């Protein structure tokens, strides 16, 4: 039993505990952040009684949820019913292994970090399917299948956008991606079209915003989570909010320059620079604010519109984007400038033409349907 091994195991356990702690804290902060921001955007104050300006509200909610009865339906598969909410957190926790929080601080500097992220996001689908099945409820099952279909469909545009980032950064390692965005050449400025594709796909992956059909209370009760109550439901719930932060962290790392910002070397303790950490958090929470803002402003997509949007719009555009980026990288003389020009043109074309094309297509569809007199 070598000392090396024991130390490695201890480090592993500590890292996992820290990751879980970050996930929980992020989830709790997000919940109260969202409630207050939603309140402010809706001309009202959010919950501001518990603790200073209401920041202890989610802690109170978490305690309340933990005190609820541990209840499982009689016909439910008890093992799977308990396993699903536990498994669902794994996605959020495991991604943190590769994210560079600040200069010189990554848990594991995997040189295939991007693929790792993709692999972990595909893990959540499994736990949702299990959750829907284990409830022994037809409607939960249908909800779980719909959720799984949505998440699987939107993984593809996400991966296609990630590939473009990898091409532009020249490596799959997240540290290399952050480094490639030095001197404020963030990918959101040089590749805005890819950023838009990735952002839309990530919002759909999170089951948030206009893509939250699986958990829309008005339509499916709670979809796959119908039979869950108390802390089991709390786990699904926390995972969704933690996912907001985690996905924002990924987006910031890939497109918004990670921890880069002014005064990077101002405050360094034990080799860990603290000012970039602040920039990182600021950017992450700006993105979380945008997620909450979108959720409030955009009406929900129907399930067929959802799937149609993924397969008929985002995936072809993602593929075309890859082809065009590859062409630019291979043949254009100043590839950075050429890529920026192409990407901005693509963004303007997409945003400008989307409405017209959609209206045209709907008109054609309506004309094809026979009018019954």
């Amino acid at each position, binding site marked *: 039993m070598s000392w090396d091994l024991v130390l490695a195991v201890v480090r592993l356990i500590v890292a996992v505990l820290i990751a879980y702690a970050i996930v929980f804290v992020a989830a709790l902060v997000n919940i109260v952040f969202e409630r207050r921001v939603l309140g402010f955007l809706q*001309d009202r104050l959010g919950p501001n009684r518990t603790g200073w300006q209401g920041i202890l509200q989610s802690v109170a909610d978490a305690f309340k949820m933990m005190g609820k009865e541990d209840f499982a339906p009689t016909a439910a598969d008890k093992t799977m019913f308990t396993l699903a909410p536990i498994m669902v957190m794994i996605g959020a926790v495991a991604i943190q292994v590769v994210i560079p929080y600040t200069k010189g601080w990554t848990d594991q500097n995997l040189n295939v970090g991007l693929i790792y992220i993709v692999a972990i996001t595909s893990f959540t689908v499994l736990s949702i399917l299990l959750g829907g099945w284990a409830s022994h409820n037809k409607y939960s099952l249908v909800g779980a299948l719909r959720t799984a279909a949505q998440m699987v469909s939107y993984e593809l545009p996400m991966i296609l956008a990630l590939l473009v980032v990898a091409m532009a950064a020249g490596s799959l390692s997240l540290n290399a991606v952050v480094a490639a965005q030095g001197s404020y050449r963030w990918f959101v400025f040089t590749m805005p079209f890819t950023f838009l594709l990735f952002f839309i796909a990530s919002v759909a992956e999170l089951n948030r915003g206009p893509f939250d059909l699986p958990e829309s209370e008005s339509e499916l009760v709670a979809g796959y989570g119908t039979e869950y109550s108390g802390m089991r439901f709390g786990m699904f719930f926390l995972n969704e909010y933690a996912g907001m932060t985690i996905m924002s962290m990924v987006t910031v790392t890939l497109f918004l320059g990670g921890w880069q910002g002014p005064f990077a070397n101002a405050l360094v303790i034990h080799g860990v620079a603290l000012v970039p950490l602040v920039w990182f958090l600021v950017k992450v929470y700006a993105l979380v604010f945008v997620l909450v803002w979108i959720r409030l402003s*955009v009406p929900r997509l129907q399930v067929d519109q959802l799937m149609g949007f993924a397969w008929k719009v985002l995936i072809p555009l993602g593929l075309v984007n890859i082809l065009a980026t590859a062409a630019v990288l291979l043949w254009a003389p100043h590839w950075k400038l050429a890529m920026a020009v192409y990407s901005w043109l693509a963004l303007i074309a997409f945003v400008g033409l989307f409405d017209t094309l959609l209206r045209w297509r709907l008109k054609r569809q309506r004309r094809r349907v026979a009018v019954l007199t």
Partner: protein
Amino acid sequence: MLGIFKAMRVTLGHLPRRKITVQYPEQREHLPERSRGLFRVVIDPATDDPRCRACTLCETNCPVQVIRVNYESRYRLPAVNEARIQRVRADSQPRPDLELLAPVIDHYRETAPGMMAVLRNTQEIYGYLPRPALQEISVETGVSLSQIYGVASFDDQFRLSPAGRFVISVCHGTACHVAGAPLISAAFADELGVEAGQTTKDRLFTLQTAGCLGPCALAPVVRVGDDETHGRMTPDGARALVAELRHRAQVDR
């Protein structure tokens, strides 16, 4: 896509606006003079008396059921004729003996039945539902008076004024209707001098129409009270029945 951005811009525009909600109870919104959201007994400045008429509708309609109206009102309901007439009738009714209500209240306390059962028991004791009895029920059960009236007025079996000695029910079910029940009803109405649903002035007869009473082979059917059924009725038979009942009343004096 552009529409989404426009929607987002609209939403963001709400961020700097003044918020509608206030930090209650530290801050309160100033309500206009005549607003009716506030619970208080309004005093008429002219007479220094409360304006409340104890109709208990507030008690019925309160969504959180926090209002209880305890009243001994010396005011009559405002001048809607129907209400005034009902009140006159109620006042002219003999004061019911509320001691008789005790077994009904006990039954309620033991088994917590619905209001229908309580009212049916009450009607069995008094023959109708006197207002003082309903008030007593309201006090004892905690259900507001207007809700009790809601149940009582909805169902045909409950009478809010005393019935006559003989309750004549003319069946208007399908078979009886086809066999000429309207003529029977008209004959009764003509003979007794009251309309369906009313009681004669001498408190002998109450005329009412009923749904199908059952013995359709004997259509048209008339039932007197609870147990006396006359089949194959004719208008002449109706008049004869009234005469016989009058005679019976004379004899049983």
